């Protein structure tokens, strides 16, 4: 059987720009256009443009169902605001990490990982009736990220989007294209994510690249997206957490409203009371070796944990990783080793995130 990777509405744009394409979660996506290093730098210093149309979107019209499947209390989320939350299974394991948008009509929009959009949809439906719609393939999503992103989007917007607070959104037009303009991102920089209809995606993409020329805009691929999110300490589902990980282990306690019922809550409380056996930490490598997903973390010759994400930090100039270690070695300053091809390379536990932008809004 030949499984064909899905294409976003911007597929032809990526080919036209000479992107190196890769298969990611069943989607053929740009890995890089020129250089991951240069695209990373553009986002930190100017502005980068991402195609995020592979992400899934689910619309929940049943408030009770939404409250049951999402880890945070949506009763406190006002229309026009978004928040990061978990979907958990009955054992407290993470089904997916999502952004929840409270829409003006009272419904909730869940932005979910590309590879999980159909399984999330099925999973939510198994807990309710027909009150969930899978709209991911109808919508494109563009990320505009970096210190020049707000100025650029503002020049093209039909309203004052620079006044939007972080994790707030508005419905409106950018470059004449109707969509949702959201002050969110996955890079550690200020900027927007803009949802629009598939048919408008190319127009919005091309206008951004043209109008952003003086801002130093560059198209940025999944390679830079990964090195950027790692510096910002943002977890990647499937790498840093999965259905066998609970949110406490992943250091995501702040995404849980444990004073109310939701699926997985009881198991998470039990795990908390029992005491955690591992916790996700940041590691700073003390030499030049590159830590990678799956490398063992060692201490006194014993395997004590595992690296879940690792790479060079272009911004900081040293190598970084996220890894699971026992709670006894999870405090900043603790020393561990990372087994790189048989050598225990010294590393220091550091607080997450590794990188914080200079003047957050």
């Amino acid at each position: 059987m030949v499984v064909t990777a899905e294409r976003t509405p911007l597929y032809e744009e990526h080919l036209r720009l000479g992107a190196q394409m890769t298969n990611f979660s069943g989607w053929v996506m740009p890995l890089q256009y020129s250089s991951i290093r240069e695209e990373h730098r553009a986002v930190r210093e100017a502005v980068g443009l991402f195609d995020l149309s592979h992400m899934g979107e689910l619309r929940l019209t049943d408030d009770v169902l939404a409250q049951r499947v999402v880890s945070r209390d949506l009763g406190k989320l006002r229309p026009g605001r978004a928040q990061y939350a978990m979907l958990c299974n009955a054992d407290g394991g993470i089904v997916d990490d999502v952004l929840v948008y409270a829409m003006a009509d009272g419904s909730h929009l869940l932005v979910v990982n590309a590879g999980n959009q159909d399984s999330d949809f099925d999973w939510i439906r198994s807990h309710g009736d027909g009150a969930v719609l899978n709209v991911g393939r109808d919508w494109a999503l563009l990320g505009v990220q970096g210190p020049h992103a707000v100025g650029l989007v503002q020049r093209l917007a039909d309203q004052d989007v620079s006044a939007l607070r972080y994790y707030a959104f508005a419905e409106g037009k950018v470059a004449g294209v109707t969509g949702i303009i959201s002050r969110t991102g996955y890079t550690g920089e200020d900027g927007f994510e803009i949802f629009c209809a598939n048919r408008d995606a190319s127009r919005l993409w091309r206008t951004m690249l043209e109008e952003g020329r003086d801002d130093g805009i560059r198209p940025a691929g999944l390679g830079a997206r990964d090195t950027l999110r790692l510096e910002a300490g943002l977890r990647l589902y499937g790498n840093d957490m999965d259905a066998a990980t609970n949110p406490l282990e992943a250091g995501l306690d702040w995404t849980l409203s444990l004073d109310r019922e939701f699926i997985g809550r009881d198991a998470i409380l039990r795990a908390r009371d029992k005491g955690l056996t591992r916790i996700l930490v940041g590691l700073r490598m003390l030499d030049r070796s590159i830590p990678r997903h799956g490398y063992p973390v060692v201490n006194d010759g014993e395997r004590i944990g595992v690296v879940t994400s690792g790479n060079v930090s272009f911004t900081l100039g040293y190598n970084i990783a996220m890894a699971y270690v026992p709670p006894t070695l999870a405090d900043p300053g603790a020393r561990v080793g990372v087994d790189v091809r048989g050598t225990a390379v010294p590393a220091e536990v550091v607080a997450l995130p590794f990188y914080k932008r200079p003047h957050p809004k």
Partner: protein
Amino acid sequence: MPDLSGMRFSQSHEWVKTDGDSATVGITEYAQSQLGDVIYLELPNVGQTLEQGGKLGVIESVKAASDLYNPVAGQVSEVNQELKEHPEYVNQDPYGKGWIIKLAGVKDNSALFDAKAYDAFVQGQSGS
């Protein structure tokens, strides 16, 4: 485009340029473009004897770690120390300042491709 006529190439995309019984080794333009941004190299020590086709070291790009293979037998006489601070030289100038090691006591490189044969080999690989 640098003059590649005096160079020989391996199936694992290393190049070698011999001068008498000494040789300079690097990776090809095709290899660097496939790897993407090089960020670290793990290289042998000076004095180490390397077999033809044996492991020369590890090259890491943002994407992945890959093994480097030695295209021709010899003894390591020099390692490009510049690459410690500037691994990106391998991307920017793979046949020039991105060279990787120098070997002494080199005898035979006749098993390797010449530039034309290597080009045909790469065409066949990337076309498949």
